[in-house]
């Protein structure tokens, strides 16, 4: 009798849903007991779900391109393209989401009211629990733990979360020992004239590193600035994500007199398989913290970047890059030296 009761209680039909969990927007999420297939609504979410349990990710928001695929084990690089569900511009079709037979939808990034209501709406439509988590760099560890709990991968998530926390603490400690804080400007776009002010998600790494952002006074968000303004700021270091801008800055007479250009301290962030510095705004930006940290505070960020990058790739991308691939990544003109 007791055994029969126990069987009933343990049957899938009975415990179809767990104790509800709260997501970062305060919505109650009831995932099924066994979550096997997870739909990630945007790149930052894909990255974390993949890091925790690669076999549970049902697809990428965009198919891996030929230059991105080699960074992942083949079977994961070939996962299908399913589109983005939230953020700027939806490309996913709700029927595609349903067809992916996901047990859980997750998004990592902003947890504001508009995204929360969108999540509630999609959840209502699809009957698939839809959880939102905080995408800020310093929330990464807690987001990893929450995701792990929902997905039933606490152990894997805990390993990653601990490691991430440790790395952030270590980076902060290196920042605190730095004595010189060069004035830094982040130039986006082909002209290098788009940037982000203090508090902007685009320069979250600069804020994390306590860097002196030349454009701190610009608005928090993406902002276009006049080049005359950049000449006044006269930054000592320029970081960029745009290869066209990086290539043209050396010969463009308008930029010639900027200190960073004269001192050859204009650096181009790597962007494979995910960008290091700015976008997508996910856990991948730890690479950008190390990279920018080394460029801004070379005395205290005195570790071997190669080894760190390899470790990040092993933990989050499940494939340790070959020596040749690391050479290509770090030896790209502009990454560490012109």
């Amino acid at each position, binding site marked *: 009798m007791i055994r029969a009761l126990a069987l009933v209680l343990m049957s899938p039909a009975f415990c179809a849903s767990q104790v509800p969990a709260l997501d970062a927007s305060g919505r109650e999420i009831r995932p099924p007991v066994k979550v096997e297939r997870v739909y990630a609504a945007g790149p930052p979410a894909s990255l974390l779900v993949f890091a925790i349990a690669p076999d549970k990710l049902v697809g990428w928001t965009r198919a891996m391109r030929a230059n991105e695929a080699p960074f992942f084990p083949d079977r994961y690089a070939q996962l299908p393209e399913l589109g*983005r569900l939230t*953020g*700027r*511009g939806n*490309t996913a079709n709700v029927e595609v989401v349903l067809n992916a037979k996901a047990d859980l939808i997750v998004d990592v990034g902003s947890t504001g009211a508009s995204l929360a209501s969108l999540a509630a709406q999609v959840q209502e439509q699809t009957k698939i629990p839809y959880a939102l988590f905080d995408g800020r760099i310093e929330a990464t560890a807690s987001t990893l733990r929450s995701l792990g709990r929902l997905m039933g991968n606490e152990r894997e998530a805990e390993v990653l979360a601990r490691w991430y926390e440790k790395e952030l603490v270590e980076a902060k400690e290196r920042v605190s020992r730095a004595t010189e804080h060069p004035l830094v400007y982040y130039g*986006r*776009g*082909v*002209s290098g*004239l*788009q940037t982000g002010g203090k508090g902007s998600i685009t320069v979250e790494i600069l804020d994390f590193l306590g860097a002196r952002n030349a*454009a701190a*006074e*610009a*608005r928090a968000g*993406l*902002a*276009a*600035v*006049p*080049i*005359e*303004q950049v*000449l*006044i700021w006269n930054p000592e270091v320029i970081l960029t*994500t745009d*290869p*066209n801008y990086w*290539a*043209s800055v050396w010969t*463009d*007479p*308008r930029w*010639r*007199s900027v200190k960073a250009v004269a001192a050859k301290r204009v650096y181009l962030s790597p962007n494979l398989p995910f*960008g290091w510095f*700015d*976008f*997508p*705004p996910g856990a991948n930006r730890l690479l950008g913290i190390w990279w920018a940290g080394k460029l801004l505070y070379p005395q205290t960020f005195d570790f071997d970047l190669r080894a760190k990058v390899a470790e990040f790739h092993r933990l989050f991308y499940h494939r340790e890059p070959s020596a040749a691939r690391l050479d290509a990544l770090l030896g790209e003109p502009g990454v560490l030296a012109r």
Partner: protein
Amino acid sequence: MSSRTLSYVLAGGALVGLTVLAFAVGRYPISLSEMTSLLLGQPVGANVETVVLQVRGPRVLAALVVGASLAAAGTAYQGMFRNPLVSPDILGVSTGAALGAVLGIFLSLGVFFIQLLAFAGGLVAVGLVYFIGSRLRGHDPLLALVLTGVVIGTLLGSAIALLKYLADPYNQLPAITYWLLGSLAAITPRDLGVAAPLALLGLAPMLLLRWRMNLLALPDDEARALGVDTRKLRTLVVAAATLMTAAAVAVSGIIGWVGLLIPHAARLLVGPDFGRLLPLAMLLGAAFLLAVDTLCRTIATIEVPPGVLTALIGTPFFLWLFALARRSW
């Protein structure tokens, strides 16, 4: 002095005054004595030279060229189509240029190729509209042209929308948005060196033929009775207007208002005669865009999109002028 002459003198004076002012102000402070030294060829700080010759100078001149071109093209089209609501984009030049630029951004090309694609896109779009529009027989040729322009423009617009949709949302989409908003912020001397001659190439035939352009407003048979082949003249005007608008838009992105409302302002001042209208519209267009762009780059740490200010300043100015003038269209 007649009121017409007065209009020219005032507009010309305003243009000169604004140009001097535009060189004098900017985010980078340059004193009057530094400016004088530079003009006299005396040594100045490296930054002063860079700011004036590489940054501010090209930008001021570009504002003049773009403003004059858009106003001239708008004036020509409004006269030719006998329609006060027509802007330089009526035959799809800006939309075609926008599609070219958006494609360039989508393919992660450099500035030069983005501009090249924009310029080519503008020319191809109008070429296509003209080719199709002039083959639709049995309609008023102008109506056929306008309708083809509207239809092709919508088609190109949806291609832009598709590319925006497919673009990378973190990186390419903001770049596309900025381009579509229009700006003179990234002008380099090289941009000016390429765009200005092309714009002048378009302006020259229009200025030379400005007295004959009035005939374009007549129905074809009446003009023919006067001995003018309107079809040839129309083709020439469209080619000239397209060339200068495409050159302008390729370096500045899309800046609205100037090409639509400056011709009206000029018409309120000197009447509809094209010979008088064109030079004044060009003066006003150049002065207006220069004033707007000078504000764009000076009032805040960040750039203000000119499209916002053109409407914000232009609208009350235009209504004021409209209320003041007694002259009919």
